[in-house]
């Protein structure tokens, strides 16, 4: 992972470092050997207490039945058994999956298209770029509010526009078949600008002589894109997809504000369900079990992602 990150953010540096020794060996006095540990201690202590320990405690809690009032009762794997027999859990899992896949596909796909569209550095393109970046700098809470109002079934702008072209209004957030797609729409609207920005800056890093060579070989625009642009920006795409994936898994704000998981659990995601079981129903053991499942999913995704795709990414 270190290598991947390094090559994405510091492509030039990793090449230079291959030639120059990164650090000079310095003779140290004995006491100085402790210094690096002292320097990293505050950061590591915080990460330990607020990331590592909570994970351990979560796994521990998942074997217990506890509602914060009565003493903890050890139930073994009962929480997991209940969970895997609960159709609601699978609905939540499916929702999370649905949300993640579509947000990724549209968020990355549209960003890629927008980046190609805005590649030339002209005044109008710069305006468009800041326009699509605008939602990214707004707090998610505000974004959720705007869209709740735009998607209002009776007075919303979207349904009014649909009415103009003679289509029936959609109950964006109340219809269980539509609600999840409404949330996906909002997420894509919010994240596409950032993705475009990263992809654009990656595209600008592709050396011009490669395009020159492609032109001399009479490669068409499609071929140039797939054979040169895409491989050259693949490290950025790789990283961006992973970050988007994690962002999808942790999405909470839009669900909580726009739909509160409803209608009929149609928009409840794993994180939202975890929050509900923990803070609303006080089933801490069950909530922790859901957390463990989410953690395993994230871990598996990261491993598979680095294992399967990481090798195919083209690094200069």
């Amino acid at each position, binding site marked *: 992972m270190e290598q991947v990150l390094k090559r994405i953010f510091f492509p030039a540096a990793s090449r230079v470092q291959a030639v120059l020794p990164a*650090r000079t060996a310095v003779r140290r006095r004995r006491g100085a050997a402790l210094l690096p540990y002292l320097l990293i201690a505050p950061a590591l202590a915080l990460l330990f207490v*607020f990331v590592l320990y*909570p994970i351990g*405690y979560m796994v521990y809690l998942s074997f217990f039945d506890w509602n914060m009032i009565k003493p903890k009762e050890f139930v073994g794997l009962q929480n997991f058994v209940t969970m895997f027999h609960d159709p609601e859990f699978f609905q939540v899992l499916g929702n999370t999956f649905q949300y993640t896949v579509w947000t990724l596909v549209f968020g990355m796909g549209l960003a890629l298209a927008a980046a190609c569209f805005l590649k030339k550095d002209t005044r109008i393109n710069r305006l468009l770029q800041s*326009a*699509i970046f*605008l939602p990214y700098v707004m707090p998610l809470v505000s974004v959720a*509010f705007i869209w709740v109002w735009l998607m209002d079934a009776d007075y919303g702008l979207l349904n009014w526009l649909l009415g103009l072209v003679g289509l029936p209004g959609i109950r964006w957030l109340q219809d269980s078949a539509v609600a999840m797609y409404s949330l996906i729409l909002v997420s894509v609207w919010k994240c596409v600008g950032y993705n475009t920005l990263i992809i654009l800056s990656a595209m600008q890093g592709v050396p011009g002589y490669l395009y020159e060579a492609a032109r001399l070989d009479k490669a068409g625009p499609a071929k140039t894109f797939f054979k040169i642009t895409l491989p050259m920006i693949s490290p950025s795409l790789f990283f961006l997809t992973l970050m988007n994936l994690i962002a999808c898994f*942790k999405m909470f704000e839009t669900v909580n504000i726009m739909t509160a998981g409803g209608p009929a659990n149609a928009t409840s995601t794993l994180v939202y369900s*975890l929050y509900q079981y923990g803070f609303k129903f006080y089933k801490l053991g069950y909530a922790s079990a859901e957390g463990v499942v989410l953690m395993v999913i994230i871990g598996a995704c990261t491993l598979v992602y680095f294992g399967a795709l990481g090798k195919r990414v083209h690094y200069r």
Partner: protein
Amino acid sequence: MKRTVCRTARSAVSILMLLVFFVPVYWMLLTAVKTMGQCYQTPPAFWVSNPAWDNFTRAFEAIPFRNMLKNSLIVTAGTLLCQCVTVIPAAYAFARMRFRGEKLLFGAVLATMMIPAQLIFLPVFLLFSQAGLINSYISLIIPHGTSAFAIFMLRQTFRQVPDELLEAARLDKAGQWKIITRIMLPLARPTLLTLCLLTLVTTWSDYFWPFVMTTNNDVRTLSVGVSMLRIVDGGVDYPLPFLWNRWSGRCTG
């Protein structure tokens, strides 16, 4: 012929993009100054001639605005300060020093980037409630007091500082402290600025953490306050949230 078609299509796409991204924002600003009646009007009004500025006063009164603004400022500044104190030394050690377990520890730091706060808030909440620290600034600031991403970015920047400079500093008998403050930090200024800005924006607009770590309004931040406007009004009084959005949107932008 083909060129004109191309250009028309291009313009059409450009205009569509502008509309899709500007109209919702414009709609938010507009709704902020609409009266109730204007909000529920069909066809919707695209312009209001006499803006209802008193929406702002009403929103400021609906939630403890002053207190929440203060909380947002304290939490953002505290998080920023705490991250500086933890990230800079750690990045320096990982970049310029060699010690046992360096690789393993750095790998562990990077791995924590994959764990979102939304996954572990429950144990952290229990931890703080055992310590009696729920509804305190500590519970909002300290858990975000360091950043794996920032450590990584700063470490890479520190590594790019030429060795000759450090060599010269050592010949002048500069201590580690002097090397960090006089050489490393000034040279890493662009990265530092970017990281600070990133922390500032994420902390200011963060909703989830203050939402789950508080049970009353004492230390709640503005983003939670904004969401409360809707809950307080039962989702009926829409103009209020809108104005709020505008306000917080401007502050984070």
